[in-house]
């Protein structure tokens, strides 16, 4: 029996992805009518905040798939080869998601409503000593240039990595060719990781997210954001792997691989918690007003419920449920946990973005969930399309055979 190399998108899958996208569009329209079109800047900012939260979150999540590829490439990890094309397909959504993200971010920065990004209000900045101090970094010009450059670099380097992967599709490599091939992959992965370090691990979360609370600062913020989106990215890859398995694809991916993906979800959920705790505890302990200000609406204000739910979903649930070996090897549990983790970190982003905009109440989350589902539909559509374009297994990759016999 030959490998089922070519993925055909089932009709049901397409129906679902279009239905979800439709739901997303309806939610956007409804939210625009109820809030976005309002004359009250706070009301209309609530609409934009929702778009910002969703687009940035899902962009960082799909981009995390490329991080996963590059990190495992640099570490010469062989085990993930059998589903490598799935990670690639998820990362193929970056350019489109990137364009959406850029449009939304720039629309917010250049609008007249400065509720989200106070620092974009040049008039206001003149009277605000702190924002005036920060204007060397927080200004429209730099924001635009760096955002555009970042998205272009992610897209181009990601494309290069996927392209390199396709090059192995021709014929089987000799050992010498394999070494050269690995070398090329290593160089481009390293380049991607340098860009990643300068964007996701530092500047980008400061610009896109931390600057919403423009007076506030935390050195941990970017690493924290990275951990949040990385674990969600692994969960997303897992979901597609499970879907393909259930449809009879990916013959050489089995419970062993699933088990390891589960370990990643478990370990990085705890890593996220570690960063969460470090940031929160240090600010709580030192109790400096300019720092605790950030947590005030979140811990003591209206967002209290979400704050604790965040910990329950993203820490306690993975800790207890994914600890067991069996649950990491069970298709149902792992699917449930992947969905929970993606939702959990979406919720984390919700509480990162909204409290600065809707300070006195938690906005009704139904719209946001609708928009989130729209993005999910879009990612489903883009990933599935990317999956059809390449064979499902990179069978000539030097490490493919290691992946076949992988035992965890």
């Amino acid at each position, binding site marked *: *029996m*030959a*490998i089922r190399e070519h993925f055909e998108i089932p009709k049901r899958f397409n129906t679902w992805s279009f239905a979800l996208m439709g739901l997303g569009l309806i939610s956007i329209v409804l939210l625009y009518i109820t809030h976005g079109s309002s004359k009250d800047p706070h009301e209309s900012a609530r609409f934009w905040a929702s778009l910002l939260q969703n687009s940035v979150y899902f962009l960082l999540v799909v981009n995390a798939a490329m991080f996963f590829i590059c990190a495992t490439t*640099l*570490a*010469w990890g*062989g*085990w993930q080869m059998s589903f490598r094309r799935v990670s690639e397909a998820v990362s193929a959504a970056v350019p489109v998601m990137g364009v959406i993200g850029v449009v939304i971010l720039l629309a917010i920065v250049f609008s007249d409503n400065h509720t989200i990004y106070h620092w974009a209000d040049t008039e206001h900045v003149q009277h605000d*000593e*702190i924002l005036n*101090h*920060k204007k060397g*970094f927080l200004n429209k010009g730099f924001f635009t240039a760096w955002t555009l450059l970042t998205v272009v670099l992610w897209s181009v380097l990601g494309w290069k990595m996927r392209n390199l992967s396709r090059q192995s599709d021709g014929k*089987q490599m000799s*050992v010498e060719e*394999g*070494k050269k091939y*690995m070398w090329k992959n290593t160089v481009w992965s*390293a380049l991607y990781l340098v860009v990643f*370090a300068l964007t996701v*691990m*530092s500047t980008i979360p*400061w610009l896109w997210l931390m600057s919403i609370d423009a007076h506030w*600062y*935390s*050195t*941990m*913020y*970017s*690493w924290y954001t990275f951990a949040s989106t990385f674990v969600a990215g692994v969960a997303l890859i897992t979901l597609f792997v499970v879907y393909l*398995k*259930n449809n009879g694809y990916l*013959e*050489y991916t*089995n*419970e*062993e691989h699933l088990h390891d993906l589960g*370990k990643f979800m478990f370990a990085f959920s*705890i890593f996220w918690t*570690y*960063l969460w705790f*470090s*940031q929160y505890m*240090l*600010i709580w*302990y*030192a109790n*400096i007003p*300019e720092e605790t200000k950030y947590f005030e609406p979140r811990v003591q204000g209206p967002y209290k419920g979400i704050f604790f739910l965040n910990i329950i979903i993203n820490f306690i649930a993975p800790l207890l449920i994914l600890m067991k070996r069996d649950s990491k090897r069970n*298709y149902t549990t792992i699917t449930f946990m992947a969905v929970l983790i993606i939702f959990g970190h979406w919720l984390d982003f919700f509480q990162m973005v909204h409290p600065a905009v809707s300070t006195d109440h938690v906005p009704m989350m139904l719209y946001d969930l609708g928009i989130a589902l729209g993005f999910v539909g879009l990612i489903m559509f883009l990933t599935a399309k990317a999956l059809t374009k390449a064979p499902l297994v990179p*069978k*000539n990759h*030097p*490490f*493919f*055979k*290691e992946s*076949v*016999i992988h*035992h965890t």
Partner: protein
Amino acid sequence: MALLRYESQVRAPLVDGTKDYHQVTEDICGPVEASPSRLWWIGFIISVGLLIFGIISVTMEVTYGVGQWNLNKTVGWGWDITNFVWWVGIGHAGTLISAILLLFRQGWRTGVNRAAEAMTIFAVMCAGQFPIWHMGRVWDAFFVLPYPNTRGPLWVNFNSPLLWDVFAISTYFTVSLLFWYSGLLPDLATLRDRAKLKWRKMFYGVASFGWTGSTKHWQRHEALSLVLAGLSTPLVLSVHTIVSFDFATSVVPGWHTTIFPPYFVAGAIFSGFAMVQTLLVVTRKVLKLEEYITIEHIDVMNKVIVLTGSIVGIAYLTELFIAWYGANGYEWYAFKENRVNINSPLGWSYYIMMGCNVLSPQIFWFRKMRRSITVTFFMSILVNIGMWFERFVIIVTSVYRDYLPSAWSTYYRPTIWEVGFFMGTFGLFFTCYFLFSKYFPVIAVAEIKHILKRSGESYKEKMDTLEQEDPEQFGQEHSHDHGA
């Protein structure tokens, strides 16, 4: 049929040369059974000398008080705590290699884990000296242990990160020791079985706890390893995290920053690997173990060094940037005037830190450099120096200028007894390491055997058929899908 043992030939072998199980035992146990060389004696005597210097320095401090050191009213922590953090950091590589790399299934760890774990234990022993002797009234040191007592009762301050340190480090030491020693058991039994002298047989007989190598023993041994690896993994992160809390929970400018925990951990792994390189580059040469600790091992560890060095670099720059961005005058002053300003009294130390930890490791982007023994050795020393200065910069440049210029201290430089104490810990560290390399196998014999037939050079060559087999056919023969 499910194939259990195959590794791509694209990967470099982890054991060079043609070896069988017996040869592995001979090569690694040989040095333990031979008389120590002249070089060993010279090194050992120097180490003991340094240790004696350390003992004298500490005696001076205990007899005449902490005033024997140049700590002053603002620099309450100087060389002592710098050295403490430095040694604790070094003590991270061993457990990282044995626990986290075990979980990540990195085969190359088998060549270096034993020595790295030993080093970890010695480094933590050295680290522990500093806070203990810093107490001054060291005879009251047991006050740090929380137990119902007749002193009032006087309890420890559970809110203090310094107390968390006591728990974190003692736990870490205990688990590391258990991990290292339980790994040693099969090898000690091998030495026992090979021993020809009566005292040797007795010594290794007692030390190996009656290990027979039965299936049952191996089964328990494997289970224990996994449990200890699971326990150690969070410990690798928690120890330096808690050390970073010593600083970050405070409101001292330059200390209070949220990135400290992961950044300290990355720095600790960075310095730990540097020390592993320093020791192994020499050990492999002196004990002729180049076929087990290959250039490949050194290459891989240099990759870890460039990775962690760059992570630390991102953290330094983040800290510096946010100090400006945060618009807190005191924080920014600590960075701008006490550190970045090269003309400030201690500004030079900031540049040593940046140069050694961030810039110099970038040389390891080049494969040639990673595989050069000379460059590796030189770099490992440089990184060790850089990481010492990192702690010095964090501690001293943050506190030597208090809020009021009237409380700015005079230029802090250590006394001979502070230096002597530090040198003494080198003595302790190397005395232990020399004894270890003489009486214990510096490479885990049993673990090398475990990977030999998969990653040994001569065995890999025999895998040509598998390597050339058509991937699809290979997949059908060897895949072991248990069904969805």
